[in-house]
């Protein structure tokens, strides 16, 4: 187990290096001048521009810039953004709200998604099944931002059940329910469909027939014997989907005006703040890879036949 984790962590190093390089190269190509508009109504003085470019290594070629950046990053220094504030400080303020949003979205995915999938799978071909199949298709085919703006209008403005925007960094869990549901809506639909498909397939397996034949209740045959085996692809999906969730956070946070990591990336892109964008995305990529490692370790819990020895 320990050996496996170490091997996986070592494998992550080239992936992180490659991914950050791609991101760095794209941000390097961001058009526009980061010093424009920094000195009020007049253009910045030549000395200031020279000093600024020197400080942020903007005069070096791409590879050297990347090398210098990486050297700092390896020591845990995420750099300072173009406003002189350490990116680490900014992120520390913002990651909690995005983290809460992501965790709540995953909770929606697992609870609603798996529950709907199980209900549909157990009653295959009946009303509940058709309801779940059709409504999930409905959700999948509508873009998330349309769902988001629509629900914001309905629940936030028209009926006033939830707050329409959540600008505070210490927002209550209640006010995050709507954004988290929007963020997770697409995945809820996928999880429900995936659970249903796998459950239906496994319910025909011999071991389920044996379980029923030896007199187990249906609840136990489905809940313990079938569901556990059907959950492995679902868990894989939730892990892989975590990346999409982080990307989707940019859209959701923009709709609900949440000051989280997604909003930070968006702001960084628009103000040509290269270091802020690269560091934030790198942290996201690392988190994403760690989540996927965690998912692989979970396989062993769900199915004892899979071991990482």
């Amino acid at each position, binding site marked *: 187990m320990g050996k496996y984790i170490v091997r996986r962590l070592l*494998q992550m190093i*080239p*992936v*992180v290096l*490659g*991914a950050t390089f*791609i*991101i760095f190269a*794209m*941000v390097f*190509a*961001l*058009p526009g001048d980061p010093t424009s508009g920094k000195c009020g109504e007049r253009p910045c003085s030549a000395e200031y521009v020279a000093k600024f470019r020197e400080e942020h290594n903007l005069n070096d070629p791409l590879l050297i810039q990347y090398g210098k950046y990486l050297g700092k990053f390896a020591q845990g220094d995420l750099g300072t953004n173009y406003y002189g504030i350490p990116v680490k400080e900014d992120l520390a303020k913002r990651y909690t709200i995005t983290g809460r949003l992501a965790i709540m979205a995953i909770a929606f995915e697992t609870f609603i998604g798996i529950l709907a999938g199980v209900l549909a799978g157990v009653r295959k071909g009946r009303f509940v099944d058709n309801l779940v199949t059709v409504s999930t*298709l409905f959700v*999948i*085919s*509508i*873009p*998330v*931002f*349309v769902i988001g*703006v*629509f629900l914001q*209008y309905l629940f936030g*403005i028209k009926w006033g059940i939830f707050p329409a925007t959540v600008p505070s960094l210490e927002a209550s869990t209640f006010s995050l329910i709507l954004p988290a549901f929007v963020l997770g809506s697409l995945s809820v639909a996928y999880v429900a469909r995936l659970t249903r498909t796998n459950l239906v*397939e496994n319910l025909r397996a011999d071991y389920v027939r044996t379980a029923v034949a030896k007199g187990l209740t249906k609840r136990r045959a489905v809940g313990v014997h079938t569901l556990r085996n059907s959950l492995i692809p679902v868990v894989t999906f939730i892990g892989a989907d975590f*990346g*999409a969730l*982080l*990307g*989707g956070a*940019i*859209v959701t946070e*923009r709709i609900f005006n949440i000051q989280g990591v997604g909003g930070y*990336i*968006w702001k960084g*892109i*628009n103000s040509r703040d290269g270091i802020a*964008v690269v560091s934030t*995305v790198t942290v*996201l*990529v690392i988190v*994403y*890879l760690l989540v996927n490692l965690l998912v692989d370790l979970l396989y062993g819990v769900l199915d004892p036949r899979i071991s990482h020895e």
Partner: protein
Amino acid sequence: MSDTVASTVQPAAVEEVGEARSLGQDAWRSLRSNAMFWSAVLLIGLFVLMSIWPSLFTKTDPSFGNISNVRATPSAEHWFGTDTQGYDIYARTIYGARASILVGVLASLTTLLLGGVIGVVSGFYGRWLDALLSRITDIFYAIPLILGGILFMASFPNGPNSNYFIVVGKVVLVLTVFGWPTIARLMRSSVLQVKPNEYVLAARALGASPWRIIRSHILPNALAPAIVVATINLGVFIVVEATLSFLGIGLTPPAISWGVAISDALSSIRTYPHVLFFPSLFLSLAVLAFILLGDAVRDAFDPKSR
């Protein structure tokens, strides 16, 4: 003596089984009687026709805006009403199909091609080539599609007078660059499943070239899952294009697309919901059609679902 027994038994057995069919023929037989499959095909055919030949559906000029008649509700003259700029929504929705369908189809084809080649090469040749290609796949897989798309499109923005095909091409490029790893991983694993089969060993023992083995033995048996996922991805790509347009960095006006229309309409959702409704409906129908097609093809190719 065993010969005579066999010859008496065989004809009856053959009759019972019916004529021999390949997996493809089998899948086609079950698809032929699937209503879902045909409605998806019909919808897709309609959208493709719309994107090739929009003037077949409407005679109205989509780029003519009548400022004195904005946000009108549906009427006999303007079937879907008019939008914020006084454009006829019906005409804009018909003409908008081209961008979405073009982006979806092209991005699906390029990801299938790039991911397919990389997946087959790493699965078939194995060893260091596999290790190298798999790591590269991991690197691109680690960057979420929307995140990569936002960064790329922000770094290479469209000028106000960019050529239509360059704008579309850029979106296709970014979807390809960050979308191929799914296909590559899938292709690699199905090639690994097919490779140890006896017929592949036999072909190799008979001296067939690697290219011949891939072409006539590996590909026909490993391509189906990748095609299914590429079809479903087509819908995903259309949605991502719309999302990028919503953020203002995908397709940009004057290009006419559902994504652009939806993002324009979102600001007036409270007062003029019909401006939002029609482009969203068309976009959702297109996405739905490709998902249903993918689902139907997958079920047809999956013997376990019968």
